[in-house]
């Protein structure tokens, strides 16, 4: 049995030498080190900015720590969690958030899919239309909130001015209980419908043409083709978009802060806005941490259930 012939050499033109096994191991180790070196910065950043704060917040959630009062805070175990879960104030914000999430996501899904469907049927100007529709999504929510606040102002806003020129009554967009929440949903829909549209458009574009051709040969109606080809194939992708939007809507803060400050009264205060108040008005850091952890848990549980449904859908 002869020694293994090396296939490579460090220097071209030089006679290849036998590579000892030990050196091979060291080279593999070196690769691993290199990999670790590449991953380490991102990993450290993730640990520092996400994992450590999460664990620290988890620890604080069991204490009565206050950021302004200082000190380490004493352990109160599950008292913060019990207080959050049994608080009528929290229940009220949960209902507001639920109405908002359902309203905004349903509206965005219907509109986003409709726009994507219409765009997908066009052959000319598709790129331009898509780009134009995407503009709202590229703006900062704070900027969006500010200019909608100006536009929806009952006295000085352009929307009421236009309604007035049409002979219609002025609407109190931001200062009436139900209308304020509807305005939030409307502004969020204006900004985030393009996100659903984009994903739906990707799904629609990926539907194989031959299925439609086969359906045409069978003289299937437009509605039949939509119901039996388009929708089933786009549906899983659309559900992922809905998931992202639902998570985003669940933690809505910026639009509320800018547009209504949670008003009138507390009628548009979402859970995130309430956490902010608990955390930074009274600096009840322990309670706010428990509140935040519970919100994360709700999102994780609902997402898991949703993903299971999605996987089941794919398997079927």
């Amino acid at each position: 049995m002869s020694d293994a012939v090396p296939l490579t050499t460090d220097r071209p033109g030089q006679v290849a030498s036998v590579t000892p096994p030990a050196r091979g191991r060291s080279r593999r180790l070196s690769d691993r080190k290199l990999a670790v070196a590449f991953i380490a910065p991102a990993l450290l950043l993730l640990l520092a900015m996400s994992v450590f704060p999460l664990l620290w917040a988890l620890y604080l959630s069991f204490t009565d720590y206050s950021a302004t009062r200082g000190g380490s805070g004493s352990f109160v175990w599950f008292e913060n969690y019990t207080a959050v879960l049994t608080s009528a104030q929290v229940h009220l914000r949960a209902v507001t958030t639920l109405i908002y999430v359902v309203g905004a996501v349903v509206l965005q899904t219907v509109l986003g899919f409709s726009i994507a469907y219409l765009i997908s049927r066009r052959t000319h100007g598709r790129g331009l239309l898509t780009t134009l529709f995407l503009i709202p999504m590229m703006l900062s929510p704070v900027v969006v909130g500010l200019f909608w606040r100006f536009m929806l102002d009952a006295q000085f806003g352009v929307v009421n001015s236009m309604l007035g020129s049409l002979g219609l009554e002025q609407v109190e967009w931001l200062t009436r209980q139900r209308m304020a929440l509807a305005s939030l949903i409307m502004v969020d829909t204006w900004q985030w419908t393009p996100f659903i549209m984009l994903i739906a458009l990707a799904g629609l574009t990926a539907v194989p043409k031959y299925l439609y051709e086969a359906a045409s040969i069978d003289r299937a109606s437009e509605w039949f083709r939509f119901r039996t080809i388009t929708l089933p194939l786009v549906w899983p992708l659309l559900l992922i978009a809905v998931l992202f939007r639902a998570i985003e809507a669940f933690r809505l803060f910026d639009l509320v802060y800018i547009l209504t400050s949670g008003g009138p009264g507390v009628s548009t205060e979402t859970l995130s806005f309430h956490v902010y108040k608990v955390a930074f008005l009274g600096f009840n850091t322990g309670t706010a941490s428990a509140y935040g952890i519970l919100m994360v848990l709700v999102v994780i549980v609902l997402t898991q259930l949703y993903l299971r449904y999605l996987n089941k859908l794919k398997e079927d």
Partner: protein
Amino acid sequence: MLLVGATMTACSGGEDDAAQVSAPKAPATIPELTTDPVTLSFVWFEWPPAQALEKFANEEYKKVRPNATIKVNTVPNANWHDAMFTQFAARKTDFDIAILDSQHIGEAVTNGNILDLTDFVKKNIDVNAYDPYLLAAYGQFPQAETGKRDENASLYGLPLLGDTWTMIYRKDLIGDQPPQTWDEMISAAQKCQTDHPGVSGLAFHQANGSDAAAVTYNTVNGVYGGNLWDAKAKKIEGVLNDAAGQEAMDVLVNKMKPLTAKGSGNWFIDEVNAAVAQGKACIAFNWIAASGGLLDPKQSTLGKSKEEILGKLGFATLPKQKTDLVPLGGMGMHVSAYSPAANQAEALNFMKWFEQADVQKKWAAAGGVPSRTDAIQSPEFLNAGPFNQVYADSVPRMRDMWNVPQYARLVDIENTGVNAALNGAKKPSDALNDIAREQQAVLDSSGKKGGGGL
């Protein structure tokens, strides 16, 4: 974001536990000042006095300290408390002087965020030059009794800008003489609104951000003989919502609100000024320090010159009813406990310089509202704006809110409650009872373990 923020404040908090027992003391004598270039940073909210202060201080203070530059950093009004106290919580501030609202002092002192200036004031400031209540309101903790100053109490700040509400009325629509009582004012507004379609009778703060709606209710509450609380017994429930308090809420929601513009339920300083400047309100209420822009022809439809505008606009002290109380506004200067020593020394030097009689008069002429009695009564101040006489006349009538560590939560409860009543989200009496109950719960739960803040 919240988690990262909580971690940052929590981690930094652990290092300085010992420093949190009480506010550190400022030296009685100003330490030696640096000869190197130094930037003295303030933090305030965005409004005209902030720009006026930076301009004035850089022009005048540089004459005595050429190496010093004054920077007034501003944040939106709604972020003002958070911008200061999140930095205090991190035990590191990018400002040397915090311009605190009078009601913020309790929170800052209790947490050891600002310097105790008592010894410094004794040695460097002529306290007799001030109206005692103004000096107390912008610096004293525990809070002074309305109209008085406790000379044995510690001082943590010095006045920067005095302020109160002025009644702004349309002389061309309701006559030259301002209404003298609250009832007369409502009647005049009602008549004006009826006689002039498109012009609303009243404009005032109703927003649920900052302290907007709360100050409005507190003002009416004071005028109708109500009290915000029993400070000694720490009692709000049964005091705020007593008969006088309920009458005040009824007047505000059922008599005043119907005279305001549709959709004005989120108005604050700027919106009220805009309504006046565009000729859309017969009578309005606003802070004096924010009223300067009303005389600017570029911002107004009431006239092409200041004189023409003043021919239509009048400024008066608030009407009386059962009492003559008016809200105390304005802010004091407070030295950050976390500012570098050289900057703290510069801050103390600035405050000593700023509180001198001649500087206060110059500040008055530059658009500021002084607190020294001699400056308030000076021609420089009284002639600087048509509303300055209103301030001078209002000083003995002022009443402040609660200056306690729980202020931010108390004012939020009141703001949201009054805003809900003004916008029809709650019945007025229910809103007031809820405010009193929730505020009482905040005061009662100050030592509670766990679940605080909900």
